[in-house]
């Protein structure tokens, strides 16, 4: 019964999202697009952070190299299809190469290496003016003809999000997903039940970089431009905040977190300049009072409610 109700709610939400451009103005549509791009990016991070227990502090690298690869390729050759494939492919190459070194470390050492490697990529993109456009980035990136209106771009980011989120959900609940969670929670124990933890963690990083790469394509569709800011460590930190605010131990957490943060910052920015302050307070409150995030908090409330009902029956 409960399962069916969940699916119905989900289907209604998807239908509403698909038909949103019919009722909403173009600004709201753009904000929703941003939510889908960010939510997919956050989901890709949470595969390694929440499930894999790895302190990935610089996920933005994979989004960034994918977005840049697409943009540079399309600018120079014009083939959109190859560009779209190239983005995630380059992200996976970066994920694999970095991952090989990362999985040899754990805990805070892992986190520090993600920052060092990520900032290295940022510094190169930032300074390689002749190739990447340096600090200016690429202000106008061409898109295929079927993405010329804002509604089309919106539907594209939505569909990319839905397909990727479904795939990630399946992965999280697969046998591999179980072992990734196990490795993240207790590496020594995982080894003693014959899990090759390094390979499992590396696979997690590669999958995560692939989906971050896809979110990079989605990002270009949304913004139609790229700049080195998308690779800066603060962008990675912000997505970490989205994951935490939503809840890193639940699948929906990063999606809800992204939506909440984007909505609050969008609304707040109409009234004040101090957006970072608002974000900081949200994060502070989450860390102190809702460490399991919004979704984790709600789940626990419902869980406690059911338990309480049982007790009184």
């Amino acid at each position, binding site marked *: 019964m409960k399962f069916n109700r969940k699916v119905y709610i989900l289907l209604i939400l998807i239908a509403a999202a698909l038909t949103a451009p019919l009722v909403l103005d173009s600004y709201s549509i753009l904000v929703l697009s941003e939510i889908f791009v960010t939510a997919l990016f956050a989901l890709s991070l949470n595969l390694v952070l929440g499930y894999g227990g790895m302190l990935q502090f610089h996920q933005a690298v994979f989004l960034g190299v994918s977005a840049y690869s697409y943009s540079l390729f399309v600018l120079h050759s014009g083939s959109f299809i190859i560009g779209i494939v190239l983005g995630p492919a380059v992200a996976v190459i970066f994920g694999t190469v970095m991952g090989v070194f990362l999985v040899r470390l754990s805990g805070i050492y892992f986190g520090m290496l993600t920052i060092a490697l990520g900032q290295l990529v940022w510094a190169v993109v930032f300074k390689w003016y002749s190739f990447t456009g340096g600090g200016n980035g690429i202000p106008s990136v061409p898109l295929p003809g079927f993405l010329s209106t804002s509604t089309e771009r919106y539907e594209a980011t939505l569909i990319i999000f839905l397909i990727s989120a479904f795939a990630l959900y*399946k992965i999280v609940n697969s046998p591999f997903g179980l072992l990734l*969670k196990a490795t993240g929670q207790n590496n020594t124990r995982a*080894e003693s039940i*014959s899990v090759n933890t390094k390979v499992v963690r590396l696979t997690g990083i590669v999958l995560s970089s692939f989906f971050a790469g896809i979110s990079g394509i989605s990002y270009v569709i949304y913004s139609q431009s790229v700049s080195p800011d998308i690779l800066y460590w603060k962008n990675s930190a912000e997505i970490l905040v989205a994951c935490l605010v939503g809840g890193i131990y639940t699948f929906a957490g990063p999606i809800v977190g992204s939506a909440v943060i984007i909505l609050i910052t969008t609304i707040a920015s109409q009234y004040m300049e101090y957006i970072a302050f608002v974000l900081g307070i949200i994060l502070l409150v989450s860390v102190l009072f809702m460490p399991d995030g919004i979704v984790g908090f709600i789940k626990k409330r419902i869980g406690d409610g059911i338990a309480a009902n049982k007790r009184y029956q």
Partner: protein
Amino acid sequence: MLQIKDISKSFEKFLALSNLSFDVPEGKITALIGPNGAGKSTLFNIISGHLRPEKGKIVLKNKDITGLSPHIISSLGIGRTFQIPSLFPKLTVKENIMAAYIVRNGKTFKFFGIDRKSEMAADSIIDKMNLSEVSNTPVTSCSYGVGKELEIAMAMATNPKLLLMDEPTAGIPKTEVGNIIEKIKLLCELEHITVFFTEHDISFVLSIASKIVVLNQGELIFEGVPKEAMESSDVKEIYLGKDA
């Protein structure tokens, strides 16, 4: 089954094990005893691949396994339980056991769907160990005792030929120790598993082990049957003090 050959290990200046050699016979229960700091845990960590010895070899059925990765040693048939339950805290009891079966069934890289075989195997071991009631409870919400039993269930799920158990009765009420002993004995006989365990409770050791190895300050001071151990003056000295 398992041969410890001339193993030495030190931490900084502290010598934890020195020139240790003995055998763990196949199909029997062997106990490793000694006071705190005797080097029992260090030896276990060397056998399971979590520590590297400075000197010496670990041989499993004529195969040198010294210095291999822990996951390889585990896949060669050495299972392990930990003194303080060391599990996957956010996973349910069933998922903990399933994790072990998934690796064993070669389904590590199955990214979609579920592994029904592992699920059924987990269900069956949960039935056998009377854990059905907590099957879907996350381990963090389970009692210490359940954790201890889950330790054994998970080690069994890896299909070990040799089971290393670090203080299987530690922290368990006296009344339930007998229960655990029965389970270990049964496992050993039914599944032909060799058991090698550490323990501080001498009476427990005498009732279950067919061979005893005694360590003190990293050195082997006795190796033989339990009866002889009780008569050995060296062993008495450690457990009862010099005057005994």
